[in-house]
């Protein structure tokens, strides 16, 4: 189930809220666990088993690490076991097919499509459907065991509370990646009050509007431009319009989803960390990555870059560490070569900025820095969005003037989407937020319910119409 769907908004959510808030306090974690399992099982009933398995393994490993804390070697062994288990899970379900295909291309060794363990029991080895959200929940559970070992978090002895953390439906399928230590305290004690509820509901409405009204409204244009490319009718102007459409779509799609997750968490009394901070206002590529999908970048920094030594062991090791982290970041986004290239592309820009461009960039006027960053990011989206490498290459070639400069259909696109682009551009900046904070509090109090209703009403209209409503980060 996704948040931006009618069954979620007008059946699952009201029922869940009713059950949760009617339940006595001591049962609320259990309720949260059960409704979350239902939420997950809705699309993937079979994969509930993986979710439960993952929960149980990290629960026991957390306990084992705690139990053998005095014997460091053993404790480390258990941390390692948990990491290996999570990576194996991810490896099998997410990367299995990709690895098998490339193994075959490189060495000619063929991994069978499936094995029959005993008669009637066939286990598929390739083309296994991806369990939704696996990239998110494996990272979360991994960080738990590591944090327990590092004493950044205390061990959770209550299986229901731990289960509620792993499966918690607001962040289950698309993040933000909530580290255990962020919510550890609130799993035990959190306040349920109407202030949390009201703020959470408000945030949810903001996210819903971003996803349904902003992201969906421009996403269709990207698909249209891809079709035009296939028919050989895409111009340079058209291809940039397409990239801009995709850039806006993925930002409002993903940050909208994060807003909804943060809002829902708040309704249940949890405070998740922010995931986006106006990424398109960034003044450098490094700055962009401090503002985009912050829960993921901070995860990689905390559990990969710094353990590898970060930037404290000389230039060569720093370079190595940057490359490793961005290799993993790219690969985390999908089991396909374009994501690896995308990761390396950003590694290259980050290294360039760190060692070569640093001085030069500092002297550029703010507008130019911003323009440069957007250009790098947009081309990056081109690599990110088009999995087929040759199609991706020819798309980018169109951007840089391989075909016609512009054609008649660009006029049509501009005429149809000009206002939408304008609204999206303004929404991607902090202008709205600043204006909001400048309003007298009485005006805010009047506008809040009106804007919430507008978001709910218009989003419902779009969802009932049943048009274009994909969800980009669903596959990760």
């Amino acid at each position: 189930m996704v948040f931006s769907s009618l069954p979620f908004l007008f059946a699952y959510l009201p029922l869940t809220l009713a059950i949760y808030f009617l339940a006595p306090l001591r049962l609320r974690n259990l309720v949260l666990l059960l409704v979350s399992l239902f939420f997950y099982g809705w699309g993937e009933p079979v994969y509930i088993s993986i979710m439960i398995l993952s929960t149980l393994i990290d629960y026991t490993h957390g306990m084992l690490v705690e139990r053998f804390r005095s014997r460091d070697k053993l404790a480390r062994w258990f941390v390692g076991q948990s990491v290996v288990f999570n990576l194996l899970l991810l490896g099998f379900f997410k990367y299995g097919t990709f690895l098998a295909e490339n193994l075959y291309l490189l060495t000619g060794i063929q991994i069978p499509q499936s094995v029959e363990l005993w008669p009637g029991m066939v286990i598929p080895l390739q083309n296994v459907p991806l369990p939704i959200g696996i990239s998110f929940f494996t990272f979360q559970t991994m960080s738990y065991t590591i944090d327990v070992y590092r004493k950044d978090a205390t061990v959770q002895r209550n299986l229901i509370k731990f289960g509620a953390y792993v499966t918690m439906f607001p962040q289950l399928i698309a993040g933000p990646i909530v580290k255990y230590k962020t919510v550890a305290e609130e799993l035990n004690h959190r306040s349920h009050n109407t202030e949390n509820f009201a703020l959470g509901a408000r945030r949810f409405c903001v996210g819903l509007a971003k996803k349904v009204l902003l992201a969906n409204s421009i996403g269709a244009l990207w698909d249209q431009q891809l079709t035009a490319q296939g028919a050989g009718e895409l111009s340079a102007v058209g291809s940039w319009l397409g990239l801009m459409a995709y850039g806006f779509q993925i930002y409002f799609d993903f940050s909208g989803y994060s807003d909804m997750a943060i809002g829902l968490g708040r309704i249940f009394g949890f405070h998740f960390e922010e995931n986006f901070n106006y990424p398109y206002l960034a003044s450098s590529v490094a700055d962009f990555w401090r503002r985009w999908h912050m829960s993921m970048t901070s995860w990689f920094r905390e559990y990969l870059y710094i353990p590898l030594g970060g930037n404290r062991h000389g230039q060569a090791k720093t370079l190595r560490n940057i490359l490793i982290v961005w290799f993993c970041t790219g690969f985390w986004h999908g089991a396909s070569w374009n994501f690896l290239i995308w990761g390396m592309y950003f590694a290259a820009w980050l290294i360039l900025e760190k060692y070569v461009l640093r001085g030069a960039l500092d002297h550029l006027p703010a507008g130019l820095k911003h323009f440069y960053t957007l250009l790098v990011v947009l081309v990056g989206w081109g690599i990110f969005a088009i999995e087929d490498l040759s199609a991706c290459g020819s798309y980018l070639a169109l951007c840089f003037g391989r075909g016609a400069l512009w054609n008649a259909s660009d006029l049509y696109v501009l005429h149809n989407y000009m206002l939408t682009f304008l609204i999206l551009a303004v929404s991607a900046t902090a202008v709205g937020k600043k204006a909001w904070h400048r309003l007298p509090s009485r005006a805010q109090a009047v506008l809040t319910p009106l804007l919430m209703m507008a978001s709910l009403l218009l989003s419902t209209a779009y969802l009932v119409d049943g048009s274009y409503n994909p969800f980009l980060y669903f596959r990760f």
Partner: protein
Amino acid sequence: MSKAYTRFITSLFCLFLGGLFVWHLLLPDRAQSETENRTLAQVPQLSWQTLKDGSFGQAVEKYFADQFPLRDDWTGLKARLEQLLGRECFHDVYLCGDTLISKVEEPDMDLVGKNLTYLQRLAEKTQAAVTLGFIPSAAEIWKEKLPTGAASYDQTHFLELAGELGLPMADLESALSAHKEEPIFYRTDHHWTTLGAFYGANAVLESLGMETLNQEDFTPEIVSENFNGTLYSTSGIHWLTPDTMEYWVEDTGLDITTYRTGTAEKGVLYDRSYLEKKDKYSSFLGGNQPLCVIKNTKITDGSKVLLIRDSYADAMAPFLTQRFSEVHLLDLRYYRASVAQYVQDNGIEDIVVLYSVQNFIADRNVVLLTQ
């Protein structure tokens, strides 16, 4: 924020979600949507298989969208908002001032090529003369009305390909283009109007070497001024002036047999009960049917024409009855037996393949002609 205020915001949110939930629950499900002219999704059946492969979840989503309270108002609200944003295309329908025009997608050229060879095969298989009558849609004839740069398949490209078959062809494109200032297509429906069908009929008669019809011989009867067609439904644009529908030909002397249920039954030239419904175009011959035979008792020369046709023929057939003893209409979507056999059994001299270009380039039933 005061406690009272947060309570207010909380209840507002809960009331909206919970209210629509309860409303949807209590609202009886509809079988059909009049506005959209289609059957609506019903409560899906739950089984382990459908749950496991995810189709249950999708079915529930469709069910919610289709049976949602005030569905038509929501879709109308969305179309309004899109229009405010400057959109000109609504679910593949272009809004061109006061007119809706259906976008014609680029066809699968393999399918087009195959469909054309099937026509050739039919011509080789039968003694009757095969004439082609391809009707360009409004997106072609009224292409000046389309938004600047709007994409739509160039239907003259298809007409050129069809011309290469070497079969006689009625020039409907010129016939309609010559009158493009007149209301020859509905503004809210993809079909041609009775006026458009009249010009079309003359183009067909001309190519068959028959005497054409005179407009002065008809007195149009306005039967509806409240026709909201298929484009009204698919686009969600509900604020245009409805179309006017006319009947030109009178049904005196016409003896109509329909095979709607497989056996011969008495048919009608106009089924006026449809005028009370949304789908008013179906009043011509009573809508879709596999086979329909119209005999004009006043014409005794024994001339017979068979139309291999889509729904555009419904508006045109009344005109052809004025020149033929018998007009046979055969719809390949529903008629599954051999066409060549039918031609032989009924002693038909002329076959007219009468299709809108938009339907023909995407039709997967044309292969049935080769039986």
